[in-house]
Structure formats: structure tokens, C-alpha cells
């Protein structure tokens, strides 16, 4: 357990550094963006007088670096400031969006992880066979088609033509399972297309790698069936890389869903961040970046802890 504790502590320190770097990078690039929050908010009506007035109102007259430092010190004390766009506290905006994003990610994970594992395990079990090739090519084809095309085709068939599901995902006032399924089926499936392939490939590769180990041959030679070799011998040893692939895919599900969120009008956090870019809303943008980065670092850490826990040699050290 001490290994894990030490790993976690070390990673947390590195993560803090990484997050700081992310915020510096985001800050640097956004300060290179043309226009500021006042100009973009006024858009076509941005006369110099109006812009100056709005800048004053938003506090944009302060130097950018000072605003960044304010934001940073605010974040450290748990209060990431106010949105430039509508003056709401950033935390309130995030509080509305983050649960939605987590819900979508969770729903997608619940569907895609078992599918990917099944794909990967079956492909590994029958590697080199027709089934393997079919599954692998299917997975590739799934990811090779741009997301927005998959989503739009899905909407045309299942929402417009068949009317089985909804073409948008609305905020549900009184969610029932039926409503949930209507609203979430298409976005979840579109996202599955994007993530299943990668996880399936990694699963297959990790298991195949284990199947090449002498112990797998030994198991075969003592009369263990192929399926049992894969499931009870190779799989426990392949947990590390598989969990890692899942973690990477899940981190994608939080930040990489911008297209799906746009198409299904899903009120997720990726769209919030894109809005924040469009409106030069530095506090929101930075906070979103922090969330994505923290999620990524956290997931990778969890994956590494899982990998250690799955390995008796490391676990007992």
C-alpha cells in the first residue's frame, strides 16, 4: 500500500505543476486571441465608446496578467471568479454543466466499455481468424468516420425517420427512464463510435501480448480451454494497459465531446469551454481547462493505481 501512497503523492505534486503549466499555456494563447470579452460581446455593435464602457464594467481595464493572478489566487482559495460574459460566478456555471457532462460520460462508459472489452477479448481469443479481422476492421471503420456524420446519420434514421429517439438531449425536468433513453441514446452511441475502437484495439493488443507469455502456453498445455486462458489467465495480467486505455477514453469523454454536444444541443462542459473561447471569457476558459486537465491526470492516476492493485507483485511490496 505504501507504494500506492507514494505514487499518489508524487503524482499529485506533478499534477499541480502540470495544472499550473496548463493555465499558463491557456492564458498565453488566449491573450494572443484577437479581441477581448467586451469587443466580442458587443460584436457588430462594438463602437469604441461602447467597448470602453463594457470593458470598465467587466473590469477588463486591468492588465491581463493581473487578472490572471487574481483568477489564480481566487482558484486556490476555491473561488474561480466571475464570468465575463454574464457576470455569473464561474462555479455556478460549472455546477450546472459538469453534472451533465459527467452523466453523458458515465452513460457512454457504461455502454462502450463492455462493448470494447467484448470486441477486444473476442478478437484476441480468435486472433488471426475471420472474426478477429471483422471485429478489428469494424472497430476501425467506426472510428474512421467523422463523429458528426455518424451522429447526423443516426439522427436521420432513428429520430427523424423512425422517431424512436429524440434528436436532441434536453434538460429533463422530471426524468424517467424512457425519457432518458430517448434523449441519451443517440449521443451515447455517437460517442461510443469514437471511443470503442481505441479501447478494443488496446484490449486486444494487451491480451495478445499476454497470450504470448509462456504461462499462457503452459495453461494451454495443461488443458485449459482458449476462452478460459483468455479470461482467467491473460485478462488479469492485462488489466494495467486495458485500464489505461479506458482512462484515456474516459478523459476524452469529458473534453472531446464538443461535436456531439453541439449536434445534440447537450449542455455539457466542452461547449461551455468553446463558448468561453468565443467570448474570450478567461475565468471560465481557465476553469474548464483546469477541470479537463485534472480529470485527465486523475483518471491516469486511477488507472495506474488499478494496474498496481492488479499486479500481486507490486501490490504486496
Amino acid at each position, binding site marked *: 500500500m505504501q507504494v500506492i501512497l507514494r505514487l499518489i503523492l508524487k503524482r499529485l505534486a506533478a499534477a499541480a505543476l502540470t495544472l499550473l503549466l496548463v493555465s499558463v*499555456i491557456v492564458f498565453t494563447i*488566449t491573450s494572443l486571441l484577437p479581441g477581448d470579452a467586451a469587443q466580442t460581446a458587443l460584436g457588430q455593435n462594438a463602437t469604441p465608446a461602447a467597448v470602453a464602457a463594457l470593458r470598465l464594467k467587466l473590469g477588463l481595464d486591468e492588465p491581463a496578467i493581473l487578472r490572471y493572478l487574481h483568477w489564480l489566487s481566487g482558484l486556490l482559495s476555491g473561488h474561480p471568479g466571475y464570468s465575463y460574459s454574464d457576470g455569473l460566478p464561474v462555479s455556478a456555471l460549472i455546477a450546472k454543466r459538469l453534472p451533465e457532462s459527467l452523466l453523458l460520460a458515465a452513460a457512454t462508459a457504461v455502454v462502450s466499455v463492455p462493448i470494447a472489452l467484448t470486441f477486444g477479448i473476442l478478437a484476441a481469443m480468435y486472433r488471426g481468424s475471420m472474426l478477429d479481422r471483422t471485429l478489428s476492421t469494424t472497430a476501425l471503420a467506426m472510428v*474512421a468516420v*467523422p463523429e*458528426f456524420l455518424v451522429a447526423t446519420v443516426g439522427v436521420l434514421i432513428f429520430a427523424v425517420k423512425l422517431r424512436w429517439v429524440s434528436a436532441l438531449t434536453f434538460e429533463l425536468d422530471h426524468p424517467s427512464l424512457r425519457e432518458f433513453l430517448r434523449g441519451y441514446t443517440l449521443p451515447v452511441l455517437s460517442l461510443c463510435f469514437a471511443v470503442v475502437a481505441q479501447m478494443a484495439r488496446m484490449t486486444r493488443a494487451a491480451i495478445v501480448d499476454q497470450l504470448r507469455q509462456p504461462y499462457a502456453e503452459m495453461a494451454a498445455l495443461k488443458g485449459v480451454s482458449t476462452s478460459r486462458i483468455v479470461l482467467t489467465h491473460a485478462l488479469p495480467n492485462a488489466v494495467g494497459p486495458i485500464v489505461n486505455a479506458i482512462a484515456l477514453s474516459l478523459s476524452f469523454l469529458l473534453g472531446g465531446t464538443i461535436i456531439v454536444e453541439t449536434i445534440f444541443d447537450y449542455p455539457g462542459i*466542452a461547449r461551455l469551454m468553446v463558448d468561453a*473561447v468565443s467570448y474570450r471569457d478567461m475565468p471560465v476558459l481557465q476553469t474548464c481547462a483546469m477541470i479537463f486537465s485534472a480529470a485527465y*491526470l486523475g483518471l491516469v492516476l486511477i488507472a495506474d493505481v488499478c494496474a498496481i492493485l492488479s499486479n500481486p507483485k507490486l501490490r504486496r511490496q
Partner: protein
Amino acid sequence: MSPFVTPETRSEIPATKPGAAATVTGRKRKSLPLSGRIGLVMVLFWVAVALVGPLIAPHAPGAVVSNKVFGPMSLRFPMGTDYLGRDMLSRVIFGAQYTVGLALAAAVMASASGTVLGLLATISGRWVEEILSRLLDALICVPSTIFALVMVAAFGSSLPFLLLTAALSYVAGAFRIARSLAVNLSVQEYVQAARVRGEGRLHIACVEMLPNMIHPMLADFGLRFMFIVLMLSGLSFLGLGVQPPAADLGSLIRENLSGLDNGAPAVLLPAIAVATLTIGVNLLIDSLPQRGDDA
């Protein structure tokens, strides 16, 4: 902690020791399996289209040549017309040029600089390694689409910046892989032998390690290429990407998306083009003989 004494009694099958990644180069090339050949044909086809296509394209990519939008396939317009009545065949040809050229160049840049940085991190001191790792961690943290969006918003979508953006978005992943490969290689005995001999770091990185990283990096390159193609099409979805009237294949799908419900070839054909290109690259790379691959 002396290594186990393990006589090679398994040499009935060709040696498949870890680290012997380059055995492939030593052994005589086996002919590609069927899937690899299919992949090769697909890739060569699109490379050929990108290279010679523009010479034989019937129209300029921006020319409106028909007053019928989303026209069907016909003798005059073999791939139909697009949402403005432009010739799809010409647009797909020029689109392929952008997709193949841009994505290929970006993937090469990402993989190459990832490899170089990975090597650098491995052979340099702790501080360089730490700084590089943190920096690239920071890059990988931010979702690539959003990163690209910010980059394009800040620097515009001229070709060089698009290239740089795509490369930057994927360099971190390449770095991670290159670094883990390099770390594995750095404990190989031949690297230690070079060190004991008194070789400089540069020599160790470039001469001893690099040649043995190329093949696994190539496998990674295929995926990276596919992701860059998809990222470019994602960018075009968000209204960024290649400058009009030029368009990469993903943009072609995007701009003709409203033709989807009546099955316009203007949207289906570029989709097929993207799929065949990316699948082709991966089939080809997957079927390249890898270390210890028994499939």
C-alpha cells in the same frame, strides 16, 4: 541480482526477444498478408490521387459548374455536384490533396518531434526530463479539439498554422510512446555497451537507440495520422480548417451535410474517401510484421 541463466532452447522458432524490434529489418521481408495488401492499395490510391489528381481534375475546386446543387452522379459530373453546384470529383481530388498532404505532414511532424523529444528526455538529465514531461503532459491534458480551436482562433487557419496546430495536438502522445520505448532501449545491453565504451549522449540517442524505435513509432504513426484526419474534419465542423474554396475531405463532408437526407453523393463520397484512407493506412501498418507478432 544477476540475470537468470536462460539458454535459448526455444530457438526452434525465430528469436523474438524483447528489444529485437528491428529483427524485421534483418530478416527477409515477408510478403504482406491480404489485409495489408488491401491497405496498401487504398493508401497508394489516395496518394496517387493527391499527387496526380490535380493535373487531371476536370474543374477548378472553386468553380460553380452546374446550376443544380447536390446533383446526382452523371457522365458530366461523375461524383455529382456539391451544395453550390461545384464538381464533386474535382473537389474530392483537391480535398484528398489537402487531407493526405496536411495530415501526413502533421503526423510526420508529431511523430518525429515526439521521437526527438522522447530521446532527449531519456538521455538528458533529470531536470530536462521533468520539464519536458510536465510540458507535454500539459499539452495532452487539454482536449485536442479545443486546443486546436484556440490555436486557430489565435493564429488563423493558414496552412502552416493548421499544420503546426495538428502536430502540436498530437506530439504529446507520440512523446509518451517514444519515451517509454527509449527508456526500455536505454537499459538494453548494447546501449550500456556504448556507454561503457565512452560514447557521447548524442551518439547513443541517434545511432544506438533511434534506429530501433522507428518501427514501433511507425505503428503509432498510423493511428496518429487517422486522428489528425479526424481532427481536421472536426475542426471543419466547427467552421475552422482549410481555407475555402479549398477543403479537406472532412470539410467536404461537413459542408455538404445538408445533402445527407436525400443521400447526395456529395456527402457520401467524401465520407467513403475518409474511411478508405484511414482504414487503409491502419490495415497497412497493422499488417507490417511486428516484433513477436504471430497473427
